């Protein structure tokens, strides 16, 4: 089992084991930052609140991470949000597409990803779980 966004702090160690990664943790006072470095050099950062919840994740590497693992139940939510957006665009006859960095907002999660071939990075967080004093821009 792995996990992830919205899960508890214990999931960080599970991820480290599953991902054969090395872990470094820093107490930032308003949250704890756990950084897992994969054998490929890719990094995943998990942001844990004083209440013990993973309120944000961030990633960087040559390729995107496995979002099913990283976003957990929110992965499904993101897919539904995108499907709804596509339907809305078609209904509005606004088919002109944007090809560029991605932003997805669902009621429960904010997801963004940028970069280009061989360099991807992004973050996802749960606004309701972000502790006081932490900015969304801290999650990277």
């Amino acid at each position, binding site marked *: 089992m792995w996990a992830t966004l919205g899960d508890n702090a214990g999931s960080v160690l599970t991820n480290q084991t599953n991902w054969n990664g090395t872990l470094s943790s820093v107490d930032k006072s308003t949250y704890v930052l756990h950084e897992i470095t994969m054998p490929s050099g890719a990094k995943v950062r998990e942001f844990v609140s004083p209440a013990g919840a993973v309120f944000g994740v961030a990633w960087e590497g040559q*390729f995107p991470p496995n979002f099913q693992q990283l976003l957990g139940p929110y992965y499904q939510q993101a897919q539904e949000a995108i499907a709804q957006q596509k339907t809305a665009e078609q209904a509005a006859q606004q088919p002109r597409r944007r090809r560029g960095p991605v932003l997805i907002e669902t009621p429960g999660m904010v997801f*963004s990803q940028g970069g280009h071939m061989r*360099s991807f990075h992004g973050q996802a967080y749960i606004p309701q779980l972000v502790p006081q004093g932490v900015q969304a821009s801290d999650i990277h």
Partner: protein
Amino acid sequence: MVRRFVLLLVLGSIIGLAACGGGGGSSSVTSVSVTCSPSTVSSGGTSQCTAIVGGTGNFNTAVTWSTGAGTISSSGLLTAPTVSASTSVTVTATSVQNTSVSGTASVTVNPASAGANVAPISVDAGPAGLGYTSTNAAFVTVKVCVPGSGGQCQTVDHVMVDTGSSGLRLLSSAAGGEFSLSLPGENDPNNNDAFGECLVFLDGYVWGTVNTATVTVSGETASSVPVQVILPSTSSPGVPTSCSNQNPSGGAGNEGNSLGDFGANGIIGVGLFPQDCGQYCVSQGSTCNGSNNAPCVYYDCPSSGCTPANIAIAQQIPNPVTAFATDNNGVLILLPSVADGGSSPVGGPYLTGSLIFGIGTESNNGLGSAQVYGLNGEGELTTTFNGSSIPGFLDSGSNGFFFNDSSIATCPSPNQDWYCPSTSPDNLSAQNQGTNMNAGVTVNFSIENADNLLNSSNTAFSTLGGPYISTPAEFDWGLSFFYGRSIFTAIDGAITPGGNGPYFAY
């Protein structure tokens, strides 16, 4: 008073010279004559113009330069526009002392010679059957053949030119694309299984088989190179979950499901990297197992299903330019200027440009006065915008300027992913600096109301932009940036007159 005429050669706009004879009294400028050499250039070429200023007394020999098309420097160096038919460009030098005195010269600009290394680019409404109007996509035509003499061939139009990726990928007819040729598969020499590939872009992914083809663009040919044939989710082999999981949209993120999803009949990645994956796929490609968060790119696909695999560099899908016999160190993209509001109404003449292969290898692809921007290991230069220095990259496959400026309003739904500045055009400025430079060079650009742009029937927009929300911030210089410029992309490790790649130059 004795009037003495003095002729002075002026190369720069400001050359302080005392007139011969001196003697005080009034001075006047009486004539400006202009010559440009050479008087005939190719699209994007340069011509040095000089002004001879005549006058009396202690007159000012300075002139200001202007041109009817293309750009001209303060020292009179004309950079010709990109034209699709032979065009006369008028260059004007105007006396600084007396702006009513000026001289002109004409420079004839020819289309980039239909040389072996020039592929015409069209920024048009997109492939037949697309179902909507394409936005800022640069298309070329590619000929794909079964390798070997006498092999069958198919010409595929509307293949998108992408400096942000590497490799040729063709949308199969099964997916709604044009490509229907049966190409030999590329097999893993370790087990003879056919290779498959999952290639993730920023906003989606494609899945398909790895095949071998002989690829011809303009007069350049890459013989027997790996390419990807993109398959829809309904085809066999099916999309592995470990592939779709690398996209936030999951299964819906498969851009290979239809022509509308992909937006082109193919994509030709002519970017900085010689292959699409590189060393990771040589040694760690097979480590992806669905639970360890290792990226999955290439797969072995026996009939029992696809599993992640390692693949040697030589078998990976290459930037096809690297496989050309000549002109293989990079590309030059030439696109004409686009006025505010966009250009190329549907049904009208479409905006045309050139994809020119090679850098400094032929008479039509010299760096000229272009500045070389050295890049970091991730293919990025440094862009300074609104006081922040952030990574920047030039990506013809992105269809606008993507950057973060919270002071610019985004459009109402459904264009919320684009900027709609309250004052349109919103004139902005940034600086780009390469790793080889001590200071940045200013780039001026404008953002217009995207609702107005996208509600028109135009297809090419130099002022289209949207937010880049992700942290850390980056600046994505998409196709909007390419108009009116000559932009070089030098491949990592390639030898060029501007030094070894990777770099961008413009």
